[in-house]
């Protein structure tokens, strides 16, 4: 602990101090709250009591940057302007598959307002000579204005040799289909996709199967008294961040500064250091306000690399912002899936076998699996998943809010409902039997009561063309933690407190949550805390993906704050002539526990500091009680996250319109730090899930491989008028696993929505919507009302 310095390492623990045992609250508030004893390191703060005993954590504190956002004061990456800044544009492939024979950029380079040109698709470079989707980068230009850059692109002459291509997953799987990849271009498994194993067999455009399993699937089906089987399809969904991908790169002799809309400042810094062969310390990544990422802004990306390379070439800052078409075609997507689910069960509902065979495609890459939803959610001794990635000539996928599990749940949760019907069991009763999670059991109970499950009637019972139905579905997601996550806290002589970390707030409320965590320690209000984040000059922060930001950053924030408080207390103890341990922080003062009238304002103590301020840095320690699994910087907490959602829908059987009237979302996340933000996250998850269920679809013209709806007009997102009433219930579920015991919520809240809606539609009309999106065309087709021979997208 040093003055004014924010080193990147956690303070060393004095080796002579032994770990201590503390008692933590454990269990679900309102159901069963007990305690658990945990051995913790000596430099960990004391257990944080349940929220009802706290004053800032657990309170619905409004977003600290909410006002700045709604008044337009918030600065986003696109708002960054620098003297001499150039504007970059990317020339993109007009063809779905082509070999580049020649690129002539000399005319563009000769324009006086063009300062740098980079050719990506170089004919002499086997790794880059072939373009595999419409929108693949060919070259990039930096010029004095966006219009000038656009004009320069038109002067780059490219000689394309078109190759056969394939833009449909089913056709791509057929023998003899044109090959998307060659041996060099075959991408590795995407680390954030599922499955990601190495060395999978490749046959034509299909890679896999990646096989996971337990028990013996054949025996399991032999033991079954009832077997249900179904095929399910989901379509490609794009991220549609309100704020596009944007970067301003400033290459200078003494180092590189990059302003970027990113979900992971520290990760982008590492990528840049490696790509440009720079010491980490000479690379700085900064992000201010952010308008979402949903997984698509997790890494540097080709566009990011190009902006930096252009800045280096031009010797000036370069700004590159993707337009909506680029967002839709080359900024990642959630892959489509085709899944066959087969479940065997005994008459009492006990599962004997569960098998899923999946094929999925994003485009040229990858990670198009179904996650671990089927594998982990229900008790079943015999399980097998065979997952395949299919390549087509379209833009690559990347992680998107609950990757794998979201399409996985769409299929499995309908199959479970199918099984319930076959067994003449209520869907909730069946899940009570086969789901071992006590958390989801409680969530089902709460949700059922709130949606009015008891009033649920048989399909088609309503008179008239509009049929109503109620359905439910469950969520499962890993409680992820990032260990390379640190936070600095500092108090200065006027008593003001700052918290600093490289972590970014992508719109989830990280600033607010950090302010609350630190304020709780000092007995201050959230608005008293200055939050400085989104800059790699601060201690490295975790990524804001995998629902791990709050779980990773709030414990070190509290720990660092607690270290600062302890030092302040020693100072105050001398002034008050009491023991440091007798002091507690409350309402901006350090007071004597047994004599609250005695005390000093924080500022009074801080004024006596020998130097301008004191600070402490803490890193994320291991979960108390250990992790289930650890992979490098990432770790999995012992327990999974649950979540159960219920949907009430109205289906017009004459027009095919599905209206979601109400959603009840019951969600756990360990300790809720801010119910207001959590509610907003869950609402966002529900809306994204509803949009996935009813509207979204990347539509590729099969004759040209081009997306016909690369905008937000024909690529349909749910709007305000489509939003149901959303009833959010947040469970308080303590485990005593870290200094804050908080875990994620963003992804779990997205997983159950589409299957809950699908199950509700089934309950309304008695026909199962096995494909997404459930457009009027799809519903009318399902009801057998469209003329023979009609196809749905």
């Amino acid at each position, binding site marked *: 602990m040093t003055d004014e310095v924010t080193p990147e390492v956690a303070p060393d623990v004095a080796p002579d101090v032994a770990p201590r045992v503390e008692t933590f609250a454990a269990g679900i508030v309102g159901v069963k709250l007990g305690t658990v004893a945990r051995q913790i390191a000596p430099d960990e703060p004391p257990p944080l009591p349940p929220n009802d005993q706290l004053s800032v954590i657990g309170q619905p504190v409004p977003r600290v940057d909410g006002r700045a956002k709604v008044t337009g004061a918030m600065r986003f990456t696109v708002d960054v302007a620098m003297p001499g800044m150039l504007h970059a544009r990317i020339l993109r492939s007009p063809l779905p598959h082509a070999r580049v024979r020649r690129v002539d950029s000399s005319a563009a380079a000769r324009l006086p307002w063009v300062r740098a040109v980079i050719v990506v698709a170089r004919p002499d470079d086997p790794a880059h000579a072939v373009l595999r989707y419409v929108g693949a980068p060919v070259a990039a230009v930096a010029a004095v204005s966006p219009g000038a850059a656009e004009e320069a692109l038109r002067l780059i002459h490219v000689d394309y040799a078109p190759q056969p291509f394939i833009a449909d997953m089913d056709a791509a799987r057929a023998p003899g289909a044109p090959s998307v990849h060659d041996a060099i271009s075959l991408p590795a498994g995407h680390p954030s996709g599922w499955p990601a194993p190495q060395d999978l067999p490749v046959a034509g455009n299909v890679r896999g199967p990646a096989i996971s399993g337990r028990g013996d699937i054949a025996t399991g089906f032999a033991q079954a008294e009832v077997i249900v089987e179904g095929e399910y399809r989901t379509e490609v969904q794009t991220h549609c961040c309100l704020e596009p991908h944007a970067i301003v790169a400033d290459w200078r002799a003494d180092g590189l500064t990059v302003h970027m809309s990113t979900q992971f400042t520290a990760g982008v810094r590492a990528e840049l250091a490696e790509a440009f062969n720079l010491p980490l310390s000479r690379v700085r990544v900064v992000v201010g306000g952010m308008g979402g990422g949903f997984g698509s802004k997790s890494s540097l990306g080709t566009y990011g690399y190009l902006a930096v390379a252009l800045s280096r070439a031009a010797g000036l800052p370069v700004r590159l912002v993707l337009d909506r078409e680029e967002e839709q075609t080359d900024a990642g997507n959630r892959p489509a899936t085709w899944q066959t689910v087969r479940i065997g069960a005994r008459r009492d509902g006990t599962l004997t076998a569960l098998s899923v065979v999946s094929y999925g495609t994003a485009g040229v890459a990858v990670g198009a699996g179904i996650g671990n939803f089927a594998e982990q959610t229900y008790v079943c001794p015999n399980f097998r998943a065979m997952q395949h990635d299919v390549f087509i000539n379209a833009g690559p996928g990347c992680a998107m809010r609950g990757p794998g599990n979201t399409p996985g749940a769409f299929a499995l949760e309908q199959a479970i409902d199918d099984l319930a019907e076959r067994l003449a069991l209520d869907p909730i009763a069946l899940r009570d039997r086969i789901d071992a999670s006590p958390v989801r059991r409680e969530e089902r109970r709460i949700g059922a009561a709130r949606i009015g499950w008891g009033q649920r009637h048989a399909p088609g019972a309503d008179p008239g063309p509009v049929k109503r139905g109620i359905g439910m579905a469950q969520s499962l997601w890993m409680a992820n933690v990032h260990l390379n996550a640190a936070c600095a806290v500092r108090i200065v002589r006027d008593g003001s407190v700052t918290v600093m970390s490289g972590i970014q707030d992508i719109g989830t409320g990280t600033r607010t949550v950090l302010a609350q965590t630190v304020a709780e320690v000092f007995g201050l209000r959230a608005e008293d805390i200055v939050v400085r984040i989104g800059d790699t000059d601060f201690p490295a922060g975790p990524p804001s993906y995998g629902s791990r930001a709050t779980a990773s950053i709030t414990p070190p924030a509290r720990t660092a704050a607690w270290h600062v408080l302890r030092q302040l207390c020693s100072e105050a103890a001398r002034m008050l002539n009491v023991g440091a341990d007798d002091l507690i922080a409350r309402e901006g003062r350090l007071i004597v526990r047994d004599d609250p009238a005695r005390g000093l304002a924080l500022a009074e103590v801080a004024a006596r500091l020998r130097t301008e301020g004191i600070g402490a840095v803490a890193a994320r320690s291991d979960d108390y009680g250990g992790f289930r699994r650890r992979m490098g910087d990432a770790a999995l907490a012992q327990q999974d996250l649950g979540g159960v959602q219920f949907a009430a829908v109205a289906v*017009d059987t004459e027009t095919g319109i599905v209206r979601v009237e109400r959603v009840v979302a019951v969600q756990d996340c360990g300790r809720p730090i801010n119910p207001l933000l959590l509610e907003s996250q869950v609402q966002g998850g529900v809306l994204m899930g509803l949009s996935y269920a009813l509207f979204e679809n990347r539509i590729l013209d099969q004759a040209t491989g081009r997306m*016909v709806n690369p905008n937000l007009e024909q690529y349909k997102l749910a709007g305000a008028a489509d939003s149901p009433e959303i009833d959010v219930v947040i469970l308080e579920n303590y485990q005593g696993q870290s200094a804050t015991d908080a875990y994620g919520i963003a992804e779990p809240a997205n997983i159950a929505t589409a299957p809950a809606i699908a199950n509700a539609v089934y309950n309304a009309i008695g026909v199962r919507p096995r494909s997404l999106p459930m457009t009027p065309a799809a519903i009318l087709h399902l009801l057998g009302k469209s003329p023979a021979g009609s196809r749905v997208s």
Partner: protein
Amino acid sequence: MNRFALAHARTIADAAARATTTVADAMTAARSNATRPASLIKAGGIDVLDLMKENLLAPDMLVSLRDVAGLDTITEAPDGGLRIGAMVTLGALAAHDMVRRRYPALAAALAGAASPQIRHVATLGGNLLQRPRCWYFRAAAFHCLRKGGGHCFAISGESQYHAIFDNRPCAIVHPSSAASVLVALDAAIELVDADDTIRRLPLASFFVAPGRDTERENDLRPREILTAILLPPPAAGLCTAYLRQGERSAFDWPLAEVAVALVRNEESLCVHAVIVLGAAAPVPYRAQAAEAALLGRRVDDNAARAAARAAMEGATPLPRNGYKLPLFEALVHRAIMAAVAETL
């Protein structure tokens, strides 16, 4: 988007003299005279700027009608009808008291179109003259028939939002929601050229089907300004309805829309029936078989259903838009019932 000059015309003749071309001509290489600078009319600008942003259109000048006096007013005509200036916004028209009272179907059509932001600037004239939304047409990469190319990409391609009637050789649907109702209400339009010559014609005959010309949707001529839309007074006993169905509840294009205008005599028999389908064909589509099914009959649920079935006679759906048949059938039935319910 290209650089262009923006001019504000003061009079109709001034605007007409400066509007050297129509959007349709400007977008068809063969027709546009590349050597001569092209200037186009801008009303609300929603459509014309969209086309420019997509690099489908690069005029040298836009001539704004904003400052031309008298184009944005709604006045009662001597015969009791309504004269609606071409520059009246969709929002203003939908909120207009007389429109809501006398032509509720028109108000309903406008109130449901696009989004509040768009309705606030989009004009009725621009709405009738906007170009189609076919996604191939709207992407510069597809040089299709309607842009002077040799091929329709939609008929064999992604046709889910396309026409089910008269869809050869081009399968667009007419984009204007106002048009369907206005045709049902037997509206006329007034066009004025640079010499102040006035041309009046029924709106229905202004539209151009692909069979006649695939490169334009209407008969607007260069140097011609649409000045007004003229509504006849509502016939005694006229009852109307407009229904639309989009995928989303707002900010979306209709998958199907139906405008109905009926008159029944004292014996409750239908003596006048106009049923117009929007989002069904390249021009607003008169469902004449449905109209015939109603004429001379009592308009009850059975008759409405029979008419709805008849409305789909002759449909030639494409592989991906067969769903529009049951959808239209439902809407026609409901619109007929809504129209007669209104006057019960």
